[in-house]
């Protein structure tokens, strides 16, 4: 198992896969978070009843397997609508909405955790809705939401392993390419698992640290 045909070149190939994993994750989490914040604020402002259609739409992304979301979106866009887009675009789009669906709930929870009397105080000092949101609600809601958000971002990073289904050469896909050539599946998979672990673990720990720190005050 330790005599391997793996070359530095192949390791670079894996690292490129890891880079693709991170790129897809970054784009999806970036767009998804922005959408999630917008949806979350809308959801909070409208209340449960008026935002029901939005809630239902977002809930779909949390209720069916990501793999099916990817296959369906790809089939729908390219085969039904006959629009030519790359697998990369489909992957980023689906993952972004998937992120937004979870992020929306995190944002709403964060806003709800800001005590009403603080918001009353800021409004009665003459601050506008936007100023209140930006200067009071956002900093306080962020403390509540950040640990869960970090968890979400890591979840999306791990789930991005599934975008192989739309032919995006991410970490797991590149690992399989090497497996096909080198035929050393276990060794390569352990390296692949290590890549994931090394990206995820420190960030997860940092999230746990933030949670601990902020829950004390």
């Amino acid at each position, binding site marked *: 198992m330790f005599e391997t045909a793996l070359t530095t070149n192949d390791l670079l190939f894996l690292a490129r896969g890891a880079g693709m994993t991170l790129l897809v994750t970054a784009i999806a989490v970036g767009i998804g978070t922005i959408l999630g914040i917008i949806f979350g604020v809308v959801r909070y402002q409208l209340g449960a009843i008026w935002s029901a259609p939005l809630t239902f739409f977002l809930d779909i992304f949390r*209720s069916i397997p990501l793999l099916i979301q990817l296959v369906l979106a790809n089939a729908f866009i390219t085969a039904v609508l006959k629009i030519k887009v790359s697998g990369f675009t489909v992957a980023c789009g689906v993952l972004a909405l998937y992120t937004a669906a979870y992020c929306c709930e995190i944002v709403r929870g964060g806003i709800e955790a800001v005590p009403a009397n603080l918001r009353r105080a800021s409004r009665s000092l003459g601050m506008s809705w936007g100023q209140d949101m930006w200067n009071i609600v956002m900093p306080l809601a962020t403390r509540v939401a950040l640990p869960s958000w970090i968890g979400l971002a890591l979840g999306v990073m791990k789930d991005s392993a599934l975008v192989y289904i739309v032919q995006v050469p991410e970490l797991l896909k590149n690992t399989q390419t090497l497996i096909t050539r080198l035929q050393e599946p276990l060794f390569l998979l352990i390296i692949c698992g290590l890549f994931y672990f090394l990206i995820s673990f420190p960030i997860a720990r940092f999230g746990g640290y933030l949670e601990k720190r902020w829950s004390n005050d």
Partner: protein
Amino acid sequence: MFNYNFRWNQALASLPQMLEGALVTIQIALLSMAIGIGIAIILTVFRLSGNKLLAAIATSWVEIARNTPALFQIYMVHFGLGGFGIHISPYFSLLFGIAFNNAGYLAENFRGALKAIPETQTRAARSLGMSAGQAFGHVVMPQMLRIAFLPMTNQMVWAILMTSLGAVVAMTTDLFGVTSHLNSISFRTFELFAIAAVIFYVITKAITLSARLVASRLFRY
């Protein structure tokens, strides 16, 4: 509107097969939860035991389960253990892979829930003459399970969604496997997977709703 020939009839003809697949999916999710909860309780006890080795085992389990993709975990159960001559069928590879993942996440939830139960509860139980095990089993654990009930429901939904990863270990009888197989014959990708998506949606909603019902029955305090 679309320049695409939808062939819903052809896809809908496969509905009975897909529903059978859905039953397998539910079965795997339920079993993986049962196993996952059992292991999570053991891991939680390990982490509280004060024994360094046991705690390290439990912590590694939790960290690996939480920091690598589920797809990877399922693959490793099948081919990883296979490398040591332990042969696990696709069904059980998928089941154990999901159970491994469940156990890791649930153990973390249980730890959080335990923190929320005051120490006085154990004291009160011990001073009535209960053994440490009895105090944990009859007093602490029921309360812990209640606090962790919502996270457990979420994990159950994820378990359902994770069954879709069984294809990597040649699993064919679950909903995703059945759908992929039908797709490889007829290539009605959109129609088939749209139906599968609806079935998955119904299952997950049914779980969330029945969990709410169970919670209102179970936790009357």
